[in-house]
């Protein structure tokens, strides 16, 4: 098995320390850091996503794989050029107003981060005005809105309405998710994408970029 295959496998197994040490070894053997990222680390996490889709892995294992990927990225990052290490996309994420649940949002954030996206986490109970201000300040490509309750879902609609009225939706993709949120609801409120889980959210953004 090649070293790259070993790294990919270690990511798939969620071997955090092993991914770090193997990535270091790959660099010491003269491999290009970008190549380690694209040919070893990312293929590993892509297989993790596929396994999750087939119910072969569950959330705790996916989290472990994401942590392993992060360990690899942390190892190679200092060896990437400034251009190479620049994030693939910037994402503003948060739980909408009046909702303080953040487990789902945190899972999505972790998958985004592990996949090389810059994430600006607004936290919980974020008003439409705060989201709009963050869009003006950070100019992200993607906005992720999370809600856990049917009582707080309307805040997603309010947020999107405000973003539209301020002309901030142009060039911005809005993704929504959370236990009671559905694809139909996403369409109804004018969101661009709906994601059922953290892996799907990361894959959807990867597909956009």
């Amino acid at each position: 098995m090649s070293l790259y295959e070993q790294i990919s496998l270690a990511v798939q197994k969620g071997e955090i320390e092993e991914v770090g040490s193997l990535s270091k070894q790959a660099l010491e053997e003269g491999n290009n850091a970008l190549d380690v990222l694209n040919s070893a680390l990312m293929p590993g996490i892509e297989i993790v996503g596929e396994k999750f889709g087939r119910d072969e892995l569950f959330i705790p294992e996916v989290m472990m794989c994401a942590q392993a990927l992060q360990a690899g990225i942390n190892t190679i990052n200092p060896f990437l050029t400034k251009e190479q290490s620049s994030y693939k996309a910037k994402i503003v994420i948060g739980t909408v107003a009046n909702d303080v649940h953040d487990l789902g949002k945190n899972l999505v954030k972790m998958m985004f981060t592990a996949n090389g996206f810059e994430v600006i986490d607004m936290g919980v109970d974020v008003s439409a005005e705060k989201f709009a201000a963050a869009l003006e300040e950070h100019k992200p490509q993607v906005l992720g809105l999370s809600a856990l309750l049917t009582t707080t879902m309307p805040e997603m609609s309010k947020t999107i309405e405000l973003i539209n009225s301020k002309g901030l939706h142009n060039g911005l993709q809005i993704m929504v998710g959370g236990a009671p949120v559905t694809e139909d609801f996403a369409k109804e409120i004018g969101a661009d994408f709906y994601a059922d889980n953290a892996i799907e959210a990361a894959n959807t953004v990867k597909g956009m970029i």
Partner: protein
Amino acid sequence: MFTVNPQELPIDRAEALRYLGYKPGKRKIGKKILRLLDEEMEKARTLITPRGLYRVVEVGELRNHKFFHDAQQIAFGVCTIGEKLDKEVKRLFKSGEGTRGVLLDAVGSVCAEATTDLVNAEAEEWASKNKLNITRRFSPGYSGWNVRDQKLVFAKLGKFTAGVKLTSSGIMLPIKSVSFACKLSTQDMVEINKGQKCASCNMRGRCAFSAEEGVCRKTAKEA
């Protein structure tokens, strides 16, 4: 108010795994995940302050409510494990330890339900002493009961909330809290919580009726 010693609270590992999406016997769970889960279960005991209460009220105007029409009295309850565990979950995610974060969060949910089981059992005992039938518990947001009725539950609990607060959007704080209602009557009542079946009922194995009937009398089988 009932308080439970964290060291004595039964934390069901299988239930935590179920919350995490694992199905019994379907796939082998990695040793590493199980080890981390056990560690988080132990840690949870240092982070929780399990407590709760129930309050019995006359059905009154709620006899017009579709869920309570056949009740004579209602036991409303609220339980919590406090806020420390949730804070630790947040800290774990912030420090990049999402695996432990998601495991501890599931353990917290199990602890909140386990606390509620104990308070629910107290309500059942009270019903038994008062010769009343009692239904399985059901909660706003589940079994078709609108989550907006959290306000109704808290209105009936009044100042007795075990320190749990309700936000305007119906979220209980601390997050790891459970509110519930059980119907009480001398007559038969329709079960609202049909999904729970009989697994957690204190009459399990002794009951004269099956959950499939949708009627629960909490009545022991005649010998």
